[in-house]
């Protein structure tokens, strides 16, 4: 059982993982570069925990207790007790490599160092350290509190022991782990891609319009959301970015080619729900 978890980066993903771990009874050292960022993260965490109480998912006592288990930290050295450290900083391979070097120096040699990257090569990040067998990807998906599955990404040198420890840690968090090889998009992002991409292709060829395609995929296919409703919810900028990363990481495989419609819409600021306009209009909802 993991007792001490370190998290680097108190953004949406980092804070989400912190909440999950704290609710599972794990002490969390939550690191970020300064107090301001951490204070904001703690406020968000408090709100989020309160919400979980309102929804009846946890008791008020559990929520309060979980909150006391999250310790804000501004020095990496304060993560030295951690058995596992999860990094959730910006998706930049140079920044992550640099961070892993520091983590390697500042943690126990037995500690597992994990990255929450969704698009970078775990092997590339691991290569910055001398502890490659203990480096792994833990791909939590957004929103962390409701998605029950986590991809455990095996780098070129990750050992089975490390994978096993990650699996039991994720079970401790009430999550279902699956082991995936270190390759572009892993499993989920890669196989979600054709749902959106092929729909864009069909739209681009004027075979059917967006509403028709959504209706067909829901009624004929049993999907909860049609591909365009789904793109509007994810945000077209986010989706386009993920596609670009996939395209690049696969050395330009045409299956992962970004679609001009999506590019054009992002250029024009039609980003989906959050901008009030995507494939559908959300103007009224916004008011």
């Amino acid at each position, binding site marked *: 059982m993991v007792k001490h978890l370190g998290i680097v980066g108190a953004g949406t993903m980092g804070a989400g993982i912190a909440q999950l771990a704290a609710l599972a009874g794990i002490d969390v050292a939550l690191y970020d570069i300064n107090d301001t960022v951490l204070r904001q993260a703690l406020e968000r965490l408090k709100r989020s925990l309160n919400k979980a109480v309102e929804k009846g998912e946890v008791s008020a006592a559990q929520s309060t207790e979980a909150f006391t288990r999250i310790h804000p930290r501004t020095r990496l050295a304060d993560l030295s007790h951690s058995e596992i450290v999860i990094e959730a900083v910006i998706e930049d391979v140079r920044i992550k490599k640099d961070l892993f070097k520091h983590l390697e120096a500042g943690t126990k040699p037995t500690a597992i160092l994990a990255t929450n990257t969704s698009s970078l090569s775990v092997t590339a990040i691991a290569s910055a350290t001398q502890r490659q067998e203990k480096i792994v990807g833990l791909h939590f*998906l957004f929103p962390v509190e409701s998605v029950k599955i986590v991809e455990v990404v095996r780098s070129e040198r990750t050992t089975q022991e490390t994978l096993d420890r990650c699996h039991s840690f994720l079970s401790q968090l009430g999550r279902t782990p*699956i082991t995936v090889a270190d390759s572009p998009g892993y*499993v989920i992002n890669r196989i979600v891609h054709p749902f959106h991409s092929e*729909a864009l292709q*069909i739209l681009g060829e004027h*075979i*059917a319009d967006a509403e028709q395609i959504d209706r067909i995929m829901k009624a004929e*296919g049993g999907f909860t959301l049609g591909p365009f409703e789904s793109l509007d919810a994810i945000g077209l900028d986010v989706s386009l970015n993920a596609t670009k990363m996939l395209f690049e990481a696969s050395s330009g495989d045409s299956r992962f080619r970004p679609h001009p419609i999506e590019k054009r819409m992002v250029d024009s600021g039609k980003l989906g729900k959050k901008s009030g306009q995507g*494939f559908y209009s959300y103007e009224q909802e916004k008011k």
Partner: protein
Amino acid sequence: MRAGRLRKAASRRNEGTMAKKKQRAKPPKKEPRVHQPDKALVYILGDSPIVEEYIALCSSHGYVVLYDLEEKGQTKQSFDPRLVRKSAKIPSNVSFALELTNIDLEKKRKNLEALDKALPVITAIVSSSVTVSATEQSLWINHKSRLVGFCALPTLSKTSLVEVAPTVFSPAETIQVVQRFFTSVGKEIELVQDRVGMVFPRIVCQIINEAAFALQEEIATPQDIDLAMKLGANYPLGPIEWADKLGMQQVYAVLSALHRDLGEGRYRISPLLRQMALSGTWWKRM
């Protein structure tokens, strides 16, 4: 705005686009238009198990069904003999014909030629247009205006919606007859352009193809891939479960048709998927 423009395009399509108008301007003189079937005799032929599904659907909605099926000549399930009969001969009093072949297009062509020869020119033929466009099929027969395409794949007969693809030769009356038929068996209709793969088969088969590539690269196990897609992406079924449901040979037929028709690298088929479809081996046994 895009949706609006497309909707306009869709309504234009119903009236016939400029290009189609030209092609339709002079309907062949000796080709009377089809009329509505009077809930009577339906003739069905094509791939199993789609044939069985459509026999069940039509007979449960009051139609009398005649069918033909090459595979051992027998349906896998049994039907009420008063409503459903096997008949290699196509009687001329059929009011509606369904052709449901996706895999063997030579056989499909022969079936359509036989239907076209046996049935009076007023009888409409709805034909699965998932692996070959309805327009291309209509060129195989003499009375091309009687054929309308639709989406037939295993298990889809159980869903509430059907994709229907009129051809450039389909007059409005034929489309209406086909719409009324699908309404009479309890389905909503979505009119789409007549292109290989249509909408749902194209998307779902590309999902299965991507999963097959991932499997072939040993990115994860088949069970984990299904689990990941259901829990991580809210897919109603995992890609391997979809392949099981539709049948690997049907999936392979759709992907082959897309690759043939679009001739692009993004439609290349996973060699593992191809091998499984050809050998009849299954993901789960691997």
